[in-house]
């Protein structure tokens, strides 16, 4: 994945160069092959570009090479342009085809030849050249085994600088190579471009370059792992240099003189960055640790050497709902807008008036997040609705909730006189619940009694105030004798009540309507109010469940604006999405192009939709996941969510027209387009470990509680334990709690002691 992705980047950078570097001045020495070879000095490295003509395309490379001249000079490497145009020939000049090549020599020995497209910019040139020259200092590996072998070989001998870069020739690669030039003799540099390798040592955010310092030199026990320190900053030459320096510096320097006079590596490096040096009196370890942690820029990641499972973050909330509800807990909600029900008032209230009941639990975050939306609904409906908004806190009234069959939270139910309570099954948000309540004002299906009323119903006039809540109005047409069909439709209408407006017409003159809309009875008419269209569907021998399905599918739009709320409905179609990302409303030309393709059935295997970043800002997050940086909009992409997870982007240099789009889709279908991204298929694993109490208990009893050990053996064990722990129990007991918190072994001892005291 990363490979093709990089190829794309290369393409982009070439284009950019065409624009900006055309007129730059060439200042490299231009030599004839003979002259060039005569200037080569033993042991000195030279990068030479052999070319025949000063064509515009080669000059782009020359610009970059020219740029690279200065930095390479710094490393003692000279750069030359060799002109093959003269009579002299050299095997390096090659034929036409091999024009684009540069060669790296040490003395007269050819070390490496580079196709010019690998040296696509200054960073690539410097990186590649140094990489070739520092072949021994920088070990390139591809597997975890390689890494472990290297690590093992260096234990007790030298430390390792291990880095991952996305590709060779990137700025990060250059930075690592420059660092290797300086520190290559001190540390073993190890480089990889394999994501899997980085994953396997437990790194997050593998999309970015990483550098780890492996502290292998102090490791004497071969079975022990080298401690690792992750460099937190981005990989630049300066950052790496600073990081390497601090890796060498002692963590603690004891001084006996005036602090002002002290100079440590950190101070020389200006660390900690941007923070003035402070002088503090700190009384205990905790204070120092918290002080440092809060200012820390370079965080150490310790490997689990002592089986210490106290991760620093396990007690930090990583559930967005729980955290946001907790942070918002002091907000005063106008709860009085809803009626709080109790065991005594519940039945009386829900039978006395049509009521919506929110069942929630005061301690449950999801419930409490939804309670806010519920109150918002109450605010919006204040004084306008006949529906009573009520709530029951199941933490207080668990019997009430159990009696209503509510055993999980939150649940919304609607109680209407003479009807069974209905559970709300829509999105837990203000808009959707409001829609549900509003649409429930009419009984569904609505009984339509005249052709004129039916027309009003279909045109949206009959329920003007409700049309905004239901994108379609459905009208079932039956002749008066079609009892079964009517029952099935009525059942479906009931089921969809609160989500879609349905009506039923079965008067003697029903043929007037069926003729007008050219359907045979039984049938349903579907009025799309937004588009002003009326469709008809025949309903012969269809059961309620199928009718529900038909109506649900029919209410989907052909080219919807996709939103957080409606995406799940479209995902059910299980087709790849063709998404047009737009910053604001959609370009009518684009819309027309896509609708035409839809009409011509070219998009049947896709779900075409568009996303308005103004309405759905999270779309930016999606684009960033696809492209790293926000691409120019509008942008068209095909996302194959259900099989493979590939993302394809419609070329940004093409305009979105029917022809271009169709051609692209054909190529895509034929497998000729390469994806820009494969969506990660990572499983959702536990975000953090849990406390392993079983191990702690084991550690405290110093052995596994044996399963089948007879009583007598256990007793001797206890005695032995007693002998092994001769410390003064009182002394341990009297330690302040603060110190008891620091380490497990400490507590374990305490536990042993406490046990002895009790026995």
């Amino acid at each position, binding site marked *: 994945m990363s490979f093709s992705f990089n190829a794309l980047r290369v393409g982009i950078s070439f284009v950019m160069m065409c624009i900006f570097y055309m007129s730059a001045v060439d200042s490299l020495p231009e030599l004839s092959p003979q002259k060039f070879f005569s200037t080569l000095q033993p042991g000195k490295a030279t990068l030479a570009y052999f070319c025949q003509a000063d064509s515009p395309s080669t000059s782009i490379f020359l610009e970059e090479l020219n740029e690279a001249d200065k930095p390479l000079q710094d490393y003692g490497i000279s750069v030359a342009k060799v002109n093959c145009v003269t009579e002299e020939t050299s095997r390096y000049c090659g034929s036409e085809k091999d024009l684009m090549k540069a060669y790296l020599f040490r003395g007269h020995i050819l070390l490496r030849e580079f196709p010019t497209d690998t040296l696509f910019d200054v960073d690539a040139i410097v990186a590649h050249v140094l990489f070739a020259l520092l072949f021994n200092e920088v070990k390139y590996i591809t597997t975890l085994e390689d890494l472990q072998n290297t690590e093992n070989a260096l234990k007790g001998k030298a430390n390792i600088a291990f880095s991952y870069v996305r590709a060779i020739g990137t700025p990060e690669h250059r930075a690592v190579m420059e660092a290797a030039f300086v520190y290559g003799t001190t540390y073993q540099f190890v480089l990889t471009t394999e994501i899997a390798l980085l994953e396997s040592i437990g790194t997050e955010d593998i999309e970015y370059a990483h550098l780890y310092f492996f502290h292998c030199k102090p490791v004497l026990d071969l079975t022990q792992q080298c401690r690792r320190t992750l460099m937190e900053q981005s990989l630049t030459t300066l950052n790496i240099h600073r990081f390497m320096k601090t890796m060498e510096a002692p963590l603690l320097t004891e001084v006996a003189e005036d602090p002002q006079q002290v100079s440590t590596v950190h101070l020389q490096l200006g660390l900690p960055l941007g923070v003035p040096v402070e002088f503090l009196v700190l009384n205990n370890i905790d204070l120092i640790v918290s002080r440092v942690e809060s200012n820390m820029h370079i965080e150490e990641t310790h490997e689990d050497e002592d089986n210490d499972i106290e991760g620093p973050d396990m*007690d930090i909330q990583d559930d967005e709902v729980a955290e946001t509800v907790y942070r918002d807990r002091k907000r005063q909600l106008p709860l009085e807008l809803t009626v709080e029900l109790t065991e005594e008032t519940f039945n009386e209230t829900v039978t006395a008036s049509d009521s919506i009941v929110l069942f929630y639990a005061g301690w449950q975050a*999801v419930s409490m997040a939804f309670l806010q939306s519920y109150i918002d609904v109450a605010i919006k409906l204040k004084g306008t609705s006949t529906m009573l908004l009520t709530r029951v806190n199941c933490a207080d009234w668990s019997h009430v909730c159990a009696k209503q069959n509510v055993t999980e939270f939150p649940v919304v139910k609607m109680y209407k006189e003479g009807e069974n309570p209905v559970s709300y099954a829509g999105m*837990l948000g203000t808009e959707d619940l409001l829609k549900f309540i509003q649409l429930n004002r009419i009984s569904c299906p609505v009984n339509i009694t005249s052709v004129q009323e039916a027309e009003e119903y279909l045109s949206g006039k009959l329920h003007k105030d409700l049309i905004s809540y239901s994108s379609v109005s459905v009208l079932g047409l039956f002749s008066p004798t079609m009892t079964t069909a009517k029952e099935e439709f009525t059942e479906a209408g009931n089921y969809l009540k609160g989500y879609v407006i349905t009506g039923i017409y079965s008067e003697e003159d029903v043929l007037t309507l069926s003729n007008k809309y050219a359907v045979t009875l039984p049938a349903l008419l579907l009025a799309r109010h937004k588009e002003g269209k009326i469709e008809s569907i025949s309903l012969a021998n269809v059961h309620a469940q199928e009718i529900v399905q038909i109506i649900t599918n029919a209410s989907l739009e052909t080219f919807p604006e996709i939103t957080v709320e409606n*995406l*799940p409905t479209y995902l059910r179609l299980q087709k790849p999405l063709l998404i047009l990302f737009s910053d604001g409303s959609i370009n009518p030309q684009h819309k027309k192009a896509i609708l035409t393709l839809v009409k011509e059935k070219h998009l049947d295997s896709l779900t075409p939709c568009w996303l308005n970043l103004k309405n759905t800002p999270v779309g930016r997050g999606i684009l960033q996941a696809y492209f790293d940086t926000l691409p120019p909009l509008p942008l068209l992409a095909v996302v194959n969510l259900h099989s493979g997870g590939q993302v394809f982007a419609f070329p940004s240099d093409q305009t979105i027209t029917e022809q271009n789009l169709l051609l692209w889709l054909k190529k895509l279908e034929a497998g000729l387009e390469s994806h820009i991204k494969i969506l990660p298929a*990572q499983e959702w*694993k536990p975000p953090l470990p849990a406390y392993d109490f079983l191990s702690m208990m084991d550690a405290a009893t110093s052995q596994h509680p044996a*399963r089948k050990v007879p009583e007598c053996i256990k007793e001797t064990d206890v005695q032995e334990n007693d002998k092994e722990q001769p410390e003064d129990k009182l002394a341990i007991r009297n330690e302040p709690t603060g110190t008891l918190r620091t380490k497990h072994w400490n507590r374990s001892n305490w536990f042993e002691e406490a046990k002895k005291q009790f*026995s």
Partner: protein
Amino acid sequence: MGLSAAALLWGLPGLLLTIALHPALSPCPAQASVPAHRDYCVLGAGPAGLQMAYFLQRAGRDYAVFERAPGPGSFFTRYPRHRKLISINKRYTGKANAEFNLRHDWNSLLSHDPRLLFRHYSNAYFPDAGDMVRYLGDFADRLGLHVLYNTTIAHVTLNKDQRAWNGHYFILTDQKGQAYQCSVLLVATGLSVPNQVDFPGSEYVDGYESVSVDPKDFVGQNVLILGRGNSAFETAENILGVTNFIHMLSRSRVRLSWATHYVGDLRAINNGLLDTYQLKSLDGLLESDLTDLAIVKDHEGKFHVTLKFFLEEGNRSADAVPLPQDDNDNFALRVAYDRVIRCLGWNFDFSIFSKSLRLSAGGELSKKYPLVKASYESKGSRGLFVLGTASHSVDYRESAGGFIHGFRYTVRAVHRLLEQRHHGVTWPSTQHPITQLASAIIRRVNEASGLYQMFSVLADVVLLKENATAFEYLEEFPMQMLAQLETITGRRARHGLFVINMEYGRNFSGPDKDVFFYDRSVGHTEDAWLSNFLHPVIYYYRHLPTEQEVRFRPAGWPLPRPTAIHHIVEDFLTDWTAPVGHILPLRRFLENCLDTDLRSFYAESCFLFALTRQKLPPFCQQGYLRTQGLVGTESLRQRGVESGLLWDYATVGRGDSGQQPGDHGPGQHPLAPGPPVSPFDSNKEEL
């Protein structure tokens, strides 16, 4: 245990006493009537018998309760002698939750009728025994329970019959010779026989059951009380102010219930004598084995304590019997006593049960109880269950199974077992998506009274469904029967399970332990396993443990060693709803057992995941994808951005969003799946 929880202890007045008083009735009359058949026969209309009758009635079963007395709860008409129940009647807890409030109501039976709560019958924190009699009467009447009063079952025997549910019928014969044939026999007769120790001079001793309760009868007397339980202390308490002194003698040291967490041990309400003893007010406690004892009466009618051993040297007049003080002139019990009172507790009445029933006494510590399995079924005959106080061998000196506030739940568990065994009604359960797991557990540990009262005896069980996407929740299962869970409940446990128990710290409680030591409570989540006070403990098993594993579990463990264990840290308010202190560590535990991510997400996050990842976390799958996503409000969104858990997408990529240190980088949602951690359950294919 003495007359501890006095009133509670004895489900039913002793049938045997009656029989002893009417020896003429014991031989069965000749008339051979056709036995009346009942599917369920309950012996005794005390609290346990009525509780079982209630469940049978609600399930519409064919049953009858047999009661010797003319009304229910006749034990309480006489006991405790001093009329004060020591089971608390806490009418206020500050909470509305009726289930929670049962945690602090030790007298009510379970029913659907809120009027039948004991707080409507007494205002006293320690109520009068008469109120219990009135309460039980109302309970039987209002619920219309089928009780045959004035029916003394004199004999119970077994009749083998292939057609019977259990291969045999129980044949009960009453005092009139009427026989009853029962498919299932539920024995709720309590402990009805006073425990007597036979030693020379025991005939001079007053029994608790008949001793005067009028303090005037003890004025200026030296009193010796044999026994160390609640009945002994209750008796002492009554006469403490008028006696010269009271000495209390028993084999074992005093066990204080606040040190043992066992309500049958000496309750503080009765321990006034400990106070006066330790404050040098002449009263005192002594330890000696009563079987070595002898009491001799001197010519003044006063009693002297001596050793049985001395009496064996031949017949002598009382005044000539050697006394310990003859050799040892500072012997503690050298004074003469005016009275000796026996308060040695009670035993189960085995006498009416035929040998064929093979109903035997429990182990060394609990021989006053019949031996039963953890399912309360007799080890000797299938279909015979022991309920109530008499069933206490299961958790004697540990939990509350011998008392109303405990056995009301164990009776329900037995009823659930019977419903599955004989009527194919599976153990009640609710099924939920896995995202509700933490909530389901949190709800129960915060309100369930059965778990709280019957800690370490009844536990909730979560049965995982295939792939751990859903679970079934079963309440109050007898945890020692875990291996037989599938048979007992009719539910399948093939994909792993959690057991939710409540426990005191392992080494916290016990006689003579200082439960008030400094630093006794634990506050940090990572120290939760060191919690001392009652707290929830959750066991995770990949497979249902076998009978062997349950039987040979590590010493001190209520269950076999689990795959993983979690303690929810003890809480001073017993309120385990703190988001970070209680719920978060529980979620992490569940996540690591199930090897999945159980966080909740707003719809917007699910939307992002749906379009940028091939897989979604369970919360998004089970909510958002089914169009039931949690949308959230603007203010919550802002909090999320504040906390760094949500992005402000409006500014993403606008150039001004600049990465902050610690940012995960653009495109990477801060809550996206983390690096793999090693879960407890490394055997993934199992789930």
